[in-house]
């Protein structure tokens, strides 16, 4: 009976086989490079996202209501409303009387330096 195929025999076979690696065809290389170009061309350059501006917690709370300017206006209106509610219109300044039509005072009485415009401000 013949001796068994040895590890050395197998290694010799593998070594010979390693020399038989297939060659890359030009067509395959062209296809691979065409794929590379196609993938690269389809890749969009995305601009970096803007860095978010850090805001304080008060600003974040106010944001849904329109921010500081809107809330400031609302707060001012509320204060005036409370003042008017408690004190009544009698104590309002003369401007309030004029607006409410309770006084014969005209704007020219305020001494606003609008003498030159008297004609425009007078009725009739």
């Amino acid at each position, binding site marked *: 009976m013949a001796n068994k195929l*040895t590890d050395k025999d197998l290694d010799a076979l593998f070594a010979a086989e390693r020399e038989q690696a297939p060659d890359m065809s030009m067509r395959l*290389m062209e296809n691979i490079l065409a794929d590379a170009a196609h993938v690269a061309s389809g890749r969009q350059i995305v601009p970096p996202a803007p860095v978010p501006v850090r805001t304080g917690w008060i600003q974040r709370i106010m944001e849904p209501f329109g921010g500081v300017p809107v809330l400031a206006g609302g707060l001012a209106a509320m204060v005036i409303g409370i003042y008017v509610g408690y004190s009544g219109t009698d104590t309002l300044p003369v401007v309030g009387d004029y607006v409410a039509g309770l006084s014969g005072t005209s704007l020219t009485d305020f001494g606003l330096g609008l003498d030159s415009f008297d004609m425009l401000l007078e009725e009739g």
Partner: protein
Amino acid sequence: MTMAFDLMTDWTDEDLLEAYADGDQSAARALMMRHAPRVLSLATRLLRDGSEAEDVTQEAMLRLWKIAPDWRNGEAKVSTWLYRVASNLCTDRLRKRRGVGLDEAPEIQDETPDAEAQLITADRGTALRAAMATLPERQRLALSLRHLEELGNPEIADIMDISVDAVESLLARARRALAAEMEKHREALGFTS
């Protein structure tokens, strides 16, 4: 900026991938010349069909181009990653040839009709390829990676997603099976010690 291809021989794979992701096509060429021949060699040995092996090589490289911008340095070697992709693609094709679903596919031997006939008529190289074709595909893959691509067992373990011990066991079984297959034609192949 595009670098001349011949100036990139000392670049690492990761450098080349990054350059390609930045639009340098010569980096793609350098990567192809470095890795595609080895992928083609493995695919040819596993599939024993040059045309299909070229398809697998092209597909594996295409996947590399797609993943380039997201490549994370240090997580895997490009060669290991490519071998893994290529071996999975080959396994899919081999199983489709047999018409068996991927999940239930058993490790059966390749019953290619010409595998036996080639042993008695061809030279040692052809005989070796034919004998390897009779092995279960995972044994064939392990043998190819170890003895033809000359990879170390840890890298083979990474590629096949098994432990190093399992690779050693697989290789030992594969070598025994291969030797037994070749033994049938020992004298015809000129092993007459």
